[in-house]
């Protein structure tokens, strides 16, 4: 292998052609729209009032958004929904991963079944649970009545509708946590567990002292991924509650969507979404540091 050929192979230009098309896509379809929306943050623009931006208005969009009650409520709702849902997803997902971890036929069938909710389009999962949770004629309250529980009017009640959104989220994305946890559990060296059991550690002790520290990095990453994805989700809320009743299930994403594409209040929507972006960027920086430290 002559070093000359190798040297030539390392030349940037010959590889640039591989990257160029994808780079163009990223610039045109991500970078440009992102910069455009940043420009909108400082513009006075409602599409209903004028076809073009009406001009620079400084920080007024940001100031007005903080004064907006619906925005503040949406932020709180988003935090409640994502926090609660991801908490349960992690606990149930990890438990299911342990429960169905052993290689046996029934387990692999169950694992396949559990996967299914995750591949359902969120928008259809929303309509599906809209029918399940219907207060009068829904299946959930019917099943609850078997054990003598008078189910609430899920989607018509401000508090219960929030619970409904959380339940849907858990139903759909616990499988994701299960898959990731199962892979992480399998990668724990058997010798470590054996050593622990020789030392006389019970199952629970082994889990706490051997498994959990090894799983912690994966679980932390999964948690951040899920929180971010859950904050971004719009489709399931759109078809399950449409933010209602009232504003009780408005999430940040739903608020921005409504402000931008239904009220065509572009400036306000851009301001809200950039505030949202700052928060997610911080999370992404954290993920990134975390992954780099790992390597």
């Amino acid at each position: 292998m002559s070093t000359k050929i190798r040297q030539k192979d390392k030349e940037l230009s010959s590889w640039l052609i591989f990257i160029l098309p994808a780079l163009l896509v990223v610039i045109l379809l991500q970078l440009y729209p992102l910069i455009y929306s940043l420009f909108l943050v400082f513009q006075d623009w409602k599409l209903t009032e004028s076809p073009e931006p009406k001009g620079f208005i400084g920080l007024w969009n940001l100031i007005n958004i903080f004064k907006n009650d619906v925005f503040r409520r949406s932020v709180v709702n988003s935090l409640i929904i994502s926090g609660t849902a991801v908490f349960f997803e992690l606990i149930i997902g990890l438990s299911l991963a342990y429960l169905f971890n052993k290689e046996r036929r029934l387990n692999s069938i169950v694992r396949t079944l559990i996967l299914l909710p995750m591949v359902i389009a969120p928008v259809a999962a929303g309509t599906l649970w809209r029918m399940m949770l219907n207060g009068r004629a829904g299946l959930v309250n019917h099943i609850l009545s078997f054990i003598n529980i008078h189910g609430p009017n899920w989607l018509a009640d401000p508090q219960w509708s929030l619970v409904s959104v959380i339940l849907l989220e858990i139903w759909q994305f616990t499988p994701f946590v299960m898959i990731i946890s199962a892979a992480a559990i399998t990668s724990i060296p058997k010798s470590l567990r054996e050593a622990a059991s020789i030392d006389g550690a019970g199952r629970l002790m082994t889990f706490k002292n051997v498994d959990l520290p090894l799983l912690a990095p994966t679980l932390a990453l999964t948690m951040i991924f899920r929180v971010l994805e859950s904050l971004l989700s719009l489709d399931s809320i759109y078809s399950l509650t449409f933010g209602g009743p009232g504003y009780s299930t408005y999430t940040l994403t739903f608020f921005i969507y409504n402000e931008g594409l239904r009220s065509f209040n572009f400036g306000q929507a851009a301001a809200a979404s950039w505030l949202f972006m700052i928060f997610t960027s911080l999370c992404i920086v954290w993920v990134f540091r975390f992954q780099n430290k790992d390597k």
Partner: protein
Amino acid sequence: MELNKSKQHPSQMLITALYYILVVISAFVVLVPIIYLVMNSLKLPRDFLKVPPTFLPEVVTLKHYASLFTKAKTLKYFTNSLTVTSVTTFVTIILGSFAAYGLSRMKLSKHALGMVIFTFLFIRFYPKVTTIMPYFIIMRKLNLLDTVWAVILGHLGITIPFVTWLMLVVYNDLPYSIEEAALVDGATPIQRFLMIIFPMTAPSVASSAILASFMSWNEFLIASSITRRDATVLSIAVASFVSDKGIQWGQMAAMSLIMILPMLLFALVAQKYLVNGLTFGAVKG
């Protein structure tokens, strides 16, 4: 371990019983809603208002499906979705794996590679709702509003960075020595990639393709911002039942099922690749 099954200790039996109960509960929680959707799509409208509700339809009817395909343009929505998903997936795999291979062989400095990976993570997780207004404005200017091409472009912006990110890890793990032989033969980088590398990493390509196609088929946000009538895809059609006055449960159930059934079957067939792709992205990425 299986040998002394008949002589199980009582506490062991309790655990076994508990295990089976949990199997049944898991299967129940997952399957009942899905089957309920199927049942609802076959019920007559009067059955929906029954209190207590019935799980099985009293009379099986196909009229919801019939009216979806005759009155509503469901066939068109379906073909739109199919076009968007297949074009998006195809282009994504080509451009994404090309870019990933290029990036992995450019011998970027650690710092530069870090920046690239950060960009991918950022694109995957920044709130997409930020860019839908610019998309709307761009597509209006390009005169692409309400065309499948606008939807495809919108999806490519998400799927290409995602697949590049996945494949980058794959190519980074591939030893350079494999290509050296071809290098001596004087094969160009493109020949080397197409003849040797791409076929070798086929399973990872399959995983990426599956994830990209799921993303595209299920996507709602971008599609809803740039389609009005002609380029309507299934996700929009499903959502449209929600804002309708007096929801038509039967049609809503049927439409939802039309949308999710292909992906459910696809997931069952290609489960291995789906799971690989998902764990890969989270555990290794």
